């Protein structure tokens, strides 16, 4: 029998291998949220090794991006981590702004922070409720999805779409926050604390949940750094690396927020870190809304700032320039940059090499999900199958981000 997991150099003798059974988990499986395959080698109930196969949803984003002008790539970034699309969109716009050397106004920065923190709340709501579902607690999931519907309604006010938002422009937004949008955000910020408290009462000090998640799927800080973990998974292991604090972008340095850090790197720590990050996001949104500065919601980036629609429909030059921008007849300096934002899963990086043409010469997405999912076999060796399921759902592996 072929020794699976050869790269982890298990010291298995021939005798051992005869007693072990293989169990195929996926690619279609209710517990794998997304399609990726794990073949587990099991000694009874204990997992001895795992071999992973990904690529079942490889959509060749990086090759597509070499053919698309800069605005059309925003729609690709939507579909990376589709639970929190606005963070990907704004991250991409920040990368293009870094390429062009554009400074945005404070109002734009604060609006972006509000949208990104809403997206972060949406993603963490999914991840935490799904940890509950995988351990048998379905109620939290249903309660929490109502709040996601409210967040979707806010996205609809801002950009028209629910999930794949394609939100914003290079240099800001295409429209200001309408009064309806601000009203909805304020209403949500009033509701959300009560729902989060209810959700925590169900799970966080629940004896069964704690028994199922404490000391399950742990990883030490050294191994996590060696695997290039980022985001809540790394912070649960004890390392306080957050791109918003290390290299502040979009005026995050104006805000005072706590970066939660865990101790053991196990499933319970990841759950608690995400929960605390949601509370911090609520504080940040309230803060940003209360202190939203006056100003323009866009920046006059030549060749990227689309003219207002009334002018496009009535005058000649705005019509021509609108057409040229959307079709990509624009000048971009010949540079290469790396720009990172703190996505819901960690450091989402964009490495853009531009040769001055209408499309990037090379675009590489540094996808946190792809990088930390490698550590999964190491995290589950020695635990049981049900622990492996919980570890996988607490790591928040999103298939779109895995395969790109």
């Amino acid at each position, binding site marked *: 029998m072929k020794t699976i997991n050869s790269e982890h150099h298990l010291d298995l003798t021939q005798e051992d291998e005869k007693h072990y059974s293989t169990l195929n988990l996926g*690619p*279609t*499986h*209710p517990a794998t949220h*997304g*399609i990726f395959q794990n073949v587990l080698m099991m000694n009874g109930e204990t997992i001895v090794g795992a071999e992973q196969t990904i*690529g*079942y*949803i*490889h*959509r*060749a984003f990086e*090759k*597509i991006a070499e053919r698309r002008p800069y605005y059309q790539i925003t*729609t690709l970034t*939507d*579909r990376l981590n*589709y*639970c929190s699309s606005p963070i990907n969109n704004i991250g991409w716009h920040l990368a293009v702004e870094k390429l062009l050397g554009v400074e945005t106004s404070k109002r734009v920065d604060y609006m972006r922070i509000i949208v990104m923190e809403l997206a972060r709340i949406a993603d963490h709501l*999914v991840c935490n409720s799904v940890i509950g579902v995988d351990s048998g607690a379905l109620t939290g999931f*249903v309660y929490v*999805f*109502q709040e*996601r*519907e409210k967040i*979707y309604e806010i996205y609809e006010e801002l950009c028209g779409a*629910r*999930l*794949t938002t394609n939100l914003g422009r290079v240099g800001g937004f295409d429209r200001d926050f309408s009064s309806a949008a601000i009203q909805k955000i304020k209403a949500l910020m009033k509701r959300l604390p009560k729902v989060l408290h209810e959700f925590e009462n169900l799970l966080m000090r629940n004896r069964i949940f704690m028994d199922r998640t404490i000391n399950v799927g742990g990883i030490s800080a050294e191994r996590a750094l060696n695997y290039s973990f980022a985001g809540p998974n790394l912070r649960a292991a004890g390392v306080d690396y957050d791109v918003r604090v290390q290299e502040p972008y979009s005026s995050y340095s104006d805000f005072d927020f706590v970066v939660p850090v865990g101790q053991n790197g196990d499933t319970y720590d990841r759950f608690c870190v995400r929960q605390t990050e949601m509370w911090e996001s609520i504080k940040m949104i309230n803060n940003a809304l209360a202190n939203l500065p006056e100003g323009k919601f866009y920046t006059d980036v030549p060749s990227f700032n689309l003219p207002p629609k009334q002018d496009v429909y009535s005058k000649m030059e705005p019509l021509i320039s609108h057409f040229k921008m959307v079709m990509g007849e624009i000048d971009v300096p010949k540079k290469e940059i790396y720009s990172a934002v703190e996505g819901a899963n960690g450091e989402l990086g964009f490495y853009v090499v531009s040769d001055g043409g209408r499309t990037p010469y090379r675009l590489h997405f540094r996808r946190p999900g792809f990088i930390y999912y490698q550590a999964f076999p190491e995290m589950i060796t020695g635990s049981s199958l049900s622990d492996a399921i919980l570890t996988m759902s607490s790591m928040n592996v999103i*298939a*779109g981000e895995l*395969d790109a």
Partner: protein
Amino acid sequence: MSDKDKYTVVEAPEGYSGSGFFATTLDKAVGLARKNSMWPLPFATSCCGIEFMATMGANYDLGRFGAERLSFSPRQADLLMVMGTIAKKMAPVVQQIYEQMAEPRWVIAVGACASSGGIFDTYSVLQGIDKVVPVDVYVPGCPPRPEQIIDGFMKIQELVGNEPLRRRYSPEYKAMLESYGIKTDSYDK
């Protein structure tokens, strides 16, 4: 006395013989029972899967239509809901899952990627699942709103409610499955 050659026998009009006549009310009764208790298999691969999760949630509630019990095992499912992009690596898996389902089975392709490859016209994406399995209803959208998914589901319900009982054993149906490369050896009863 009666000369049989003087009488001509007229063919009964369609619907008054065969499966159209004797079994109409039975067809409708079975269809009614089936359509209000479909057990879907959510084959969610990407973004459309998240919209499906919203459809199953309390706001849009697919459970009202009888689809409360999701089955992740194809052996117990009626309806294969393919939601999201299917890459070429995944195509044999879709076909295998389809073959494991028992008749009568329906397929709904949710989203632009499942219907036709969507925005991903690349070397690695299957341009529509109807290259590997026969599809009954296509729901366009990227991703489709939950109301659209429910609309697609209701169209499937229409199909289920009006389906003749012997459709799955007819030679045309078998020929269609053969054209996809799906074996129909056990379809004789």
